[in-house]
């Protein structure tokens, strides 16, 4: 019997090893949400991120001149916009006072830089140099000047992993800014799409898409992108709306974390996409 096993092992050891390693991998996939695994991961990515932040600092320094010029231009454009918004702001304050609506639009921002990126077609994540010591918590939205980038997935002391919009595990409730139509947006591996949108809904190419206040992950109206095209028009009763994100995920370097997490009551909802997946 032992000889038979020895012979089998000798003849097929490559396959045995392959199967054993594949089984271990599959088992580990199911242990992803385990607190122990999360702790080990936080230590591992925190240590590596400390090294990669040095490299990314060097890379960022090389592009500073161009970035400065872009920022000056953005600054000038923003100055003009701020002037206009200030006028609206004064008017808004007056109207709110008349209607007795409380102002809630005040969110603390934490600046951070991206120290490494793991970009692939299905699960893009980035690591930023701000962590629990800076008050960052899982679930906080990450933005830059263009719009939303993703949400914090896990944190270590000084670093955090951000799940970007180009990650199939992140689903976000968004709305068409013009027509106020809501829908669930996700990354399908090639495009950002709002799925199962009835054909009767008023969504057109060029419409701005922002995060919906119905979102259980974040309910700030952060810009997401513009509608690129509507597909699957020929078949079925639903459209699939392709969205062109404002953020270029491969080029983004500096970000801000909005230091708000949804209310506990909202987080405990059964249909909260961030918790359930």
């Amino acid at each position, binding site marked *: 019997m032992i000889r038979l096993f020895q012979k089998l092992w000798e003849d097929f050891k490559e396959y045995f090893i392959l199967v054993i390693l594949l089984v271990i991998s599959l088992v580990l*996939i199911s242990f992803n949400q385990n607190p122990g695994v999360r702790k080990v*991961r936080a230590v*591992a990515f925190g240590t590596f991120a400390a090294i990669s932040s040095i*490299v990314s600092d060097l890379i960022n320094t090389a592009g500073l001149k161009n970035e400065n010029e872009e920022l000056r231009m953005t600054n000038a454009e923003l100055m003009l916009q701020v002037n206009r918004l200030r006028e609206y702001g004064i008017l808004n304050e007056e109207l709110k006072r008349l209607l007795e609506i409380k102002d809630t639009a005040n969110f603390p921002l934490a600046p951070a830089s991206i120290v*490494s990126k793991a970009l*692939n*077609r299905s699960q893009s*994540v980035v690591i930023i140099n701000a962590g629990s010591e800076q008050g960052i918590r899982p679930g906080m939205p990450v933005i830059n000047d263009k719009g939303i980038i993703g949400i914090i997935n896990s944190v270590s002391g000084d670093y955090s992993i951000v799940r970007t919009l180009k990650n199939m595990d992140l689903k976000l409730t968004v709305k068409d800014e013009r027509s106020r139509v809501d829908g669930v947006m996700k990354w399908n*591996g090639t495009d950002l799409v709002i799925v199962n949108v009835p054909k009767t809904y008023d969504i057109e190419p060029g419409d701005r898409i922002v995060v919906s206040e119905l979102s259980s992950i974040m309910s700030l109206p952060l810009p997401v992108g513009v509608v690129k095209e509507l597909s699957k028009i020929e078949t079925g009763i639903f459209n699939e709306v392709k969205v062109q994100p404002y953020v270029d995920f491969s080029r983004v370097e500096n970000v801000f974390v909005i230091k708000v997490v949804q209310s506990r009551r909202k987080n405990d909802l059964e249909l909260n996409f961030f918790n359930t997946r």
Partner: protein
Amino acid sequence: MLQKYVYPLLIFFPVLLLQTTLVPFASISGVVPDLILILLVYYTLFYGQIYGTVMGFIFGFLFDIITGSLLGSAMLSKTISGFIAGYFSSESKMGIYFKSYAFSLIVLLCAVIDSVVYTFFSSIELNTSIVQVFFSQGILPGLYTAVVSVLVVFFHPKRSFD
């Protein structure tokens, strides 16, 4: 011993550093070459199938845990890629692999399988067509990785196989 087991692990970390810092700047429509896979195929061709399978498992584990990807997904895909690359491991053919572009073709095959398996296990949805996954998420990253692997053929010392 040192060359077989320690060097690949020592090289892995700088390559991962490149993969996560510089390589994203070379992305084309979100597709990036997989330098870790090139490293895996390179060493597997030298040291055989069992070595490639185990090294793929270790590389995948380190990649998953460091980058924050779904733990187990890269382990699975890199283990299979190392196993496939191991079929081409042959001392007598090493000259052929590195004097021609056969190395890149092996990388292409392994990278396509790696990408498809990775996508399938990390994020496949029930309504996604496997053919669509194969083309959009297998062929494109595989081709890009194979093109980059030409650099290995180009810079590899040819005299070592004479």
